[in-house]
């Protein structure tokens, strides 16, 4: 490790011009994250041509700040209006919005802000100190490992099933079937697109989740006076600092969720959506109060928020050290480096080590600045929860629909949001699990594609590789742990005193 290069990198980040780009990127990221459907990948892609004029460092630091800011602000509409702007924010809705309903919006936002900052800082530190080393392991993930990873992710369904396990599992399996719509990857046949060209690429996630969570909630909200239950009865006297203090109680959980986020972020083709659900499931299983999950548990919110932002750092590791972008956003960031004649990859730490460290340090500093900018921004947004529903319902409906369009610019997605809104409302009303459905929709394609590839490559033999077996053991542990813990608890209760 070259400490002189690292010191120079820190000094570079603190140059006024670099700091200005960092702050500008964070503010733009906040805006993109807070408006559902706004996609950081698209916005950054539009800015790509300008990166030539900005120079590689400023461009990449600006883009990293946009990426981090949008991840941190994603929970704002999810917490305040049950409207996830990104698939990863869907897990935030469960407990964040439930806290808002209890009049604890500021507390939820505060808890999410600190946890996001923690996750972001952790991710950046891993980048700086372990990046080049850790990146190599991402290459060990072949189709069998990816299939097992998606199955491990699906095991979180067990924690999302709610009061009716059968209906919860049914929702999940239904999600797996819906995920098969569109072109399959082996022979290129289109499966059940119902004649719509817009479904050839499969069911788009953003319109579906804006429908399942955002629009579905409106059908209930329209019958109420206010989002906050018992509004005006002194329920809401909390502040952002209450949330920050609350999340400090879960230091170990934040650390564990950040580790999950970084690991999943490192693996190309995965991302925050999968990581957040895995983290949610893990947090619930190790919690002393799992019964509070889904009903406004700050613990759940902290786990998901820390994990979401840790993914940012994780995703940067293979991009910089191996030249393998794990997501659309990191692909754009990598392109910005390449058009400025910096080739990301294993040689980056030999030829452009200074630039690599500067980028990683900017991520660290950016996360710290984000906390203070977030204090002001989150406080401002928290007032949304007190707006009467007769004003808020049409606004949320409009934002949900516009957000769903902005994702692919297809009018078809308006209808899709409305259809899934209705489905989500009916599912929720009759005890099915929209989150389990969504999780399967996210992971279904990944599971199927990698299962088929693994079988075609080497057959069942591929499934006895060490990482696969570790993931298999983790899956079984996730599924069986609640039963064991319940059994131990029962035994403890019945034991003679």
């Amino acid at each position, binding site marked *: 490790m070259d400490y002189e290069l690292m010191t120079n990198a820190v000094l570079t980040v603190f140059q006024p011009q670099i700091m200005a780009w960092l702050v500008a990127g964070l503010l733009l990221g906040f805006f993109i994250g807070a408006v559902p459907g706004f996609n950081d990948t698209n916005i950054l892609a539009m800015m790509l041509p300008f990166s030539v004029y900005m120079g590689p460092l400023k461009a990449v630091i600006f883009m990293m700040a946009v990426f981090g800011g949008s991840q941190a602000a994603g929970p704002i509409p999810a917490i305040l209006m049950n409207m996830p702007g990104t698939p990863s924010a869907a897990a935030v809705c469960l407990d964040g919005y439930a806290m808002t309903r209890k009049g604890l919006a500021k507390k939820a936002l505060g808890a999410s802000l600190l946890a996001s900052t923690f996750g972001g800082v952790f991710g950046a530190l891993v980048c700086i100190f372990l990046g080049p080393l850790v990146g190599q392991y991402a290459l060990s993930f072949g189709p069998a490992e990816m299939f097992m990873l998606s199955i491990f992710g699906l095991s979180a369904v067990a924690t999302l099933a709610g009061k009716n396990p059968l209906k919860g599992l049914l929702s999940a399996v239904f999600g797996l*079937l819906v995920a098969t719509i569109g072109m399959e990857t082996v022979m290129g046949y289109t499966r059940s697109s*119902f004649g719509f060209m817009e479904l050839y690429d499969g069911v788009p996630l953003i319109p579906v989740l804006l429908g399942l969570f955002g629009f579905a909630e409106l059908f209930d909200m329209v019958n109420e006076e206010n989002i906050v239950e018992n509004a005006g009865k002194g329920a809401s006297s909390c502040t952002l600092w209450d949330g920050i203090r609350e999340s400090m109680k879960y230091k170990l959980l934040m650390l564990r969720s950040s580790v999950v986020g970084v690991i999943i972020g490192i693996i190309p083709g995965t991302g925050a959506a999968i990581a957040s659900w895995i983290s949610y499931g893990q947090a619930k299983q190790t919690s002393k109060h799992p019964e509070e999950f889904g009903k406004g548990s700050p613990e759940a919110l902290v786990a998901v928020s820390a994990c979401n932002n840790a993914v940012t750092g994780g995703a940067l590791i293979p991009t910089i050290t191996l030249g393998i972008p794990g997501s659309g956003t990191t692909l754009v960031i990598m392109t910005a480096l390449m058009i400025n004649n910096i080739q990301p990859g294993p040689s980056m730490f030999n030829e452009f080590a200074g630039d690599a460290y500067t980028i990683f340090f900017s991520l660290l500093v950016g996360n710290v600045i984000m906390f203070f900018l977030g204090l002001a921004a989150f406080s401002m947004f928290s007032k949304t929860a007190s707006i009467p529903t007769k004003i808020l319902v049409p606004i949320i409906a*409009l934002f949900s629909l516009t957000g769903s369009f902005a994702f692919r610019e297809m009018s078809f997605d*308006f209808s899709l949001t409305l259809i899934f809104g209705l489905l989500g409302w009916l599912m929720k009303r009759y005890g099915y699990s929209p989150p389990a459905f969504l999780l399967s929709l996210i992971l279904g394609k990944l599971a199927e594609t990698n299962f088929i590839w693994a079988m075609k490559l080497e057959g069942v033999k591929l499934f006895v590789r060490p990482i696969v077996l570790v993931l298999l053991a983790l899956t079984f542990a996730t599924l069986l742990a609640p039963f064991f813990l319940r059994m131990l608890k029962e035994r403890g209760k019945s034991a003679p005193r």
Partner: protein
Amino acid sequence: MKRVDRGEFIVPGIMGLFIAAYHWQVRSIPSEVLLWPYLVTGVLAVMLGATLFRIAKGVYGAAKGWSLKKPAGLLLVTALYLSAMPFLGYSASSFLFLFGTQAWLGANKRTAFIVSLVLTALLHLVMLRIVDLDLPRLITPLFTL
């Protein structure tokens, strides 16, 4: 015998119809590419059967009462908004949707007008002018909105 809530059949009904439509659509595709869907459908069918059996036995009981008037109204105005958008353009139809829905839900008309105007102007500026999304526009001989 416990009372069976007939509404409980709605979601399984949707799932059943989806399965039927899905497999009708893929009937001419080689079964090689349907290995995974067949596997999923098999599990889904078993679970759907078990759920229907429990519903018929009245295990889930009756759901609490619900008022359908406003949700149905919201669905209707949203459908109207989406149908009007290609003709009126995104901005004009969004303004009418916002103002109309707020007024229908009982908001003060002046507040509703101001909120709708400000939000529509903001969305018009960001979505159509800055980001330049390909949203429907109202084109008249005098102006384009």
